[in-house]
């Protein structure tokens, strides 16, 4: 009676699509550019796979053909993560409300 974990993942995937649909529609149009840069950053969570790949070498040879691709992927994802979040931060810091000069 065990259920294949794939089915659970499928459920998670489908529900996440619903969440994504609603959450993105609720983003205000004036923040669509930050939205693009932040999705960029979060999609680099693929670094998780890259780390596993990078650590796949053994003690004698840290670098083997498979781990090298892992390390490259780590670097690429890291560019995205830092670049994406920081540029988003930079943009968002600029959005200001009118200062209440007149009391």
């Amino acid at each position, binding site marked *: 009676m065990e259920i294949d974990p794939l089915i659970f993942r499928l459920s998670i995937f489908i529900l996440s699509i619903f969440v994504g649909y609603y959450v993105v529609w609720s983003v205000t149009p004036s923040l669509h550019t930050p939205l693009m840069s932040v999705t960029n950053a979060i999609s680099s969570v693929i670094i998780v796979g890259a780390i596993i790949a990078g*650590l796949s070498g053994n003690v004698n040879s840290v670098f083997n053909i498979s781990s090298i691709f892992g390390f490259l992927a780590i670097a690429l994802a890291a560019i995205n993560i830092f670049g994406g979040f920081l540029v988003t931060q930079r943009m968002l810091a600029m959005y200001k409300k009118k200062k209440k000069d007149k009391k």
Partner: protein
Amino acid sequence: MISANLSAIFYLVSGVLFILALRGLSSPETSRQGNFFGILGMIIAVTVTFLSTGNFSTGFVYVLIFIIVGGSIGAFIAYRIPMTAMPELVAGFHSLVGLAAVFVAISAFLNPEAFNLGYPGNIKLGSLIEMSIGAAVGAITFSGSIIAFLKLQGIMSGSPITFKGQHPLNAVILISIIVLIYLLCSTQSSNLFWILLAVSFLIGFLLIIPIGGADMPVVISMLNSYSGWAAAGIGFTLENTALIITGALVGSSGAILSYIMCKGMNRSFFNVILGGFGATDEKSSTSSKEQRPVKSGNADDAAFLMKNASSVIIVPGYGMAVAQAQHALREMVDTLKKNDIKVSYAIHPVAGRMPGHMNVLLAEANVPYDEVFELEEINNDFANADVAFVIGANDVTNPVAKTDPQSPIYGMPVLDVEKCKSVLFVKRSLSPGYAGIDNDLFYKENTLMLFADAKKMTEDITKNL
């Protein structure tokens, strides 16, 4: 080393934090907190991965080194990039996500044991399918984004590159990708895997070249969506909840933004993706009509008109971004406000070259976001305003979208600037905008053309105020 269960819970937490990151963007006030949630989610995901591999040997040091190297490059870019270059930046970053996905897939294919996916030459079928789809989509994202980047940067010409039999060729290649995946999964042959990657890179390239430079934002957003689905595919392979959730979020996000842009331009998504729009019409339409008389003025005239107005609406467009005129504009508006003139900004959904482009530029110039309005919010106010100051915008004001069913932009919502008492147009010539069609407004009674670079003209007007 932490248990699989515990790390699964943490991955779930980081997925939820990513949801909250996007949720934060529903208003500028909560957006910074949202970004913080996103960063937190990423830190959790990375830390948990370290802890769950439990490998703190030399490899770990190298991982850190590569993260630091990549991170520094990323941080450097993030601080240096001018806000006007956001479209290119996003395209460039997407190509990296795509390539990273490809590399992870390659690594998993070469060393499936490290991922618990079986053994080389005997990878679990399900994983192999997910992995090859992830790799193919990643490769398409990579090469497609590179072309988009080059076109936006201007390194490659923005005009569509078309040739006979293009669409059939693409169709054949796409079918061959499916066949390759099928063969790969039945034979586990590594040669097929490399061929699959090569062909995917090629199709990404071929799919994007026929699309005009100005359509690139839709393409970027579509590729964003692809990169999400690629991430989700890899997430299934790695059995990682954070990746699956994120992939779905990013996938939906890109798809919705493409949809919003296509709707804002009143074009179908397929019309954009099949390409060939823009370049040719441009020349034909500019040549014929230029005889008609226009009223043109200088900074002095414009300053006079605005000084006597009681309310002014600013309509920024792509030209403002090109001229980097946002700061000058803000100074002009400050001067106007000192004279007790009411000023607001009207942003069309597809003004500029990417969604929200104008908002970011105005925010950069310290324009408070509560002075900036979207089309539906402000369109009725034009009738009561004295002056519409159109700076580097064109298509988004073109009334032909409301009147001429033959026009390619017919049905696209436009800003009703013509209802203002007078309209000022800052642009360098009578040449059309991105859609390549003439704008009747230039020839209207109450329009004054200000032929100059947007930044220069705005500064001059400020001096004259």
